[in-house]
Structures are given as C-alpha cells and as structure tokens.
C-alpha cells in the first residue's frame, strides 16, 4: 500500500469516528427510501426472476440446525427435508440465506454511516426482562405465522404485493388487521 493510500484510509476512519460522536443523522424521506427499496426489488426480479425474502432464509438456518443436532430426525421431517443440503429446493434456500446475510451487512453499514449504531433494548420502559419476554413471544408467534403464510413482509408483502399475488394481498390486509387488533395490549411498551 502506498503512503498516500494509507493516509486516505486513515482520514476515512477518522471521518467515521467523528460521525459516530455526532448526533445521529435524521432518517431518509420515507418515499425516497421506498422508491430505493422498490428498485432493489425490481433488480431482484430482473436478475433472478424472483423477489426478496427474509423468513425463508431463516427456515434454511433452522433446518440446518435440526440436521446438525438430529440428522435422522431432520431427514424424516416432512417440513425440513426440502430445505436440507443437496435437495432441489436448496438453491433458492441458499440464495435467501446469503440475502439475509446481506441485510445484516447493509443495515450495519447504513447505521454506521449515519451515526445510528447504538447498543440497547428498544421498548424497555416496561422493564428490560418483560421487554425481552415480549420480544421472544412476539418473534415466536411471527415465525410460526410466516410458515402458514408462506412468507413475511418481504416475500409476501413487498414481492407478492408488486406481483399482484392474490394470497399476498390477503396476507397483507390480515397483517395490518391483526396488528391493530392487538396493539392496545402492548401500548405501554411503545408509547
């Protein structure tokens, strides 16, 4: 590496450090961010012929976990078998796992550049332990629901929404209905 390049890297690191000390940058205009997301989704359609997903990758991870812990059980599982290693469904499964890894990286980079990396527990005004309890409970209900629905806000909501998929729009309407129905129960956590 040349001295000039080293100096440049040094300066960039300093800039990031300075940015981290400053107040966090405001969020992007929601419509602008939405158009950005829509173009990402369109790129997935154009390049791969399928859309985005998030929960699908998690199924492959859970399936791999079951296979590691209990290989015989996984091989006999009606549900996990299609997600395991060398089976035909594996290609899209692998794609979704890597996409999920990308989501982590992209979210981290965006927050880093905006000075929004901050460790903590959101919604902890009800107490840290109760909040982590609602987090695990809500996550479990949601995870279960993604399998009944064959997707989540990414695979059904955004992707199926843009494809005018009948089941996706039914899922989306039900999602908002379910959330508004239950919101009153956890109001203290969020407001």
């Amino acid at each position, binding site marked *: 590496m040349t001295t000039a390049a080293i100096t440049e890297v040094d300066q960039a690191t300093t800039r990031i450090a300075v940015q981290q000390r400053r107040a966090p940058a405001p*969020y992007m205009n929601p419509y602008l961010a939405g158009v950005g997301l829509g173009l990402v989704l369109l790129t997935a359609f154009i*390049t791969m012929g399928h859309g985005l997903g998030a929960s699908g990758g998690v199924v492959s991870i859970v399936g791999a976990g079951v296979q590691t812990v209990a290989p015989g059980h996984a091989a006999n599982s009606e549900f996990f078998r299609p997600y395991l290693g060398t089976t035909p469904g594996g290609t899209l499964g692998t794609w979704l796992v890597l996409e999920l890894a*990308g989501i982590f*990286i992209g979210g981290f980079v965006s927050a880093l550049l905006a000075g929004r990396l901050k460790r903590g527990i959101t919604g902890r005004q009800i107490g840290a332990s109760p909040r982590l309890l609602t987090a695990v409970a809500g996550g479990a209900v949601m995870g279960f629901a993604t399998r009944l629905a064959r997707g989540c806000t*990414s695979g059904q909501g955004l992707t199926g929404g843009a494809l005018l998929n009948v*089941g996706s729009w039914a899922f989306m309407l039900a999602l908002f209905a379910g959330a508004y129905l239950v919101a009153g129960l956890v109001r203290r956590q969020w407001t």
Partner: protein
Amino acid sequence: MDLTAPFYQAGVLGPRSGLVVAMLIGAAFGFFLERAGLGNGRKLASQFYLNDLTVFKVMFSAILTALLGLFWLGQAGVLDVSLILLSPTYLVPQVIGGLLFGAGFVIGGYCPGTSCVAAATGKLDALVVFAGMMAGILLYGEIYPAIRPFAESTSMGRISFPALLSVRPGIVVGIVTLLALGGFALAGRIEKSRGNRLVQPE
C-alpha cells in the same frame, strides 16, 4: 425485441454469480430499511398507534415502484414477466397467518427483515425477536404433519389479481396506483392530525 430478462432464466447469470447477486441485493435491501428508520422498533410499532405511518409509506412506495417497473419493462418487451416466480395462494391459511403475523409483529416490535437490521445496529430485543422467530419456525416444522391439512386448504394455485378477475394487468396496476396515492395523502393527514409525532433516531 428479444426478451433478455430475467437474466437467470435467460442463462446470463449462473448459480454462482446468482449468490453474489444475493449478497448485493440483501445489502441494498438492509441499507434502505435502515435509512428509512425501519430498524427502529418504536418507529415500526408507531404505525399501529397511528403516530408515524412510515411503515405504510415505505412499503407501498416500494410496491408501487416495483409494480410500475415490472409493468413497463413487460410492455417494452425486455422482461418476460411470466417467468417471475409467483408463490401459490392458500387463502384461509394465509389470512390466519397474516393475523398471527401482525399480532407477533406489534408484540415483538419487528418483522423478520427489520429484526436483522435492528440486531445489526446493536438492538438486543431485535436479536431476541430473531431467536423467537427461529423457535416458532421449529415448532411449526415439528407439528407440521398435524397442521398440514389446514395449511394446504383453500388452495387457489399461482394466481394474480388480473388472472382472478380476467382483466388486463394495466387496469389492476392503475387501480393499485390510485389506491396507493390516496393512501399516501391520507397517511399525511393522519400524521398531521396526531401532531406529527414522528419517531426520530435515538
């Protein structure tokens, strides 16, 4: 004009380069989610108390962008829309799934993608939502033989609204566009009537 997209189906992209695309697309997806503030659980939940409708605005402007892009690229003859994977509809299980998903979303505070973004930015509760989600999927997998008859009920096949209603896609695209624009105007009015209590970065 020859149809050249989707690239994967046209053989322009192989499985290996497809996986590079997966990482890049995922990264861009996570980037815009965080930019919009959707890595913030309070902002996500505020949608359901009508204080901050960012979730709605981002979701439907993304859907509208991709929808119009697909439509025009299809019309121009560069993208074969019929090759794009449409997941099959199981009406009742998907409605029940949606109701449960919405409940889990507001209780936990994140959906699957946004839980990854929030976890990546240091939020422990988001990591716990992700762990809970894995547990929920594991449970589903374990009781799948019992739940399968219901999960596969009311099957409608791979079906979109233009096919269901036997109308030209352009008509549905037009209706969705008008509904989204109306929704955006309404969302702005609701936020204003609630005193613009938008959730800011912490």
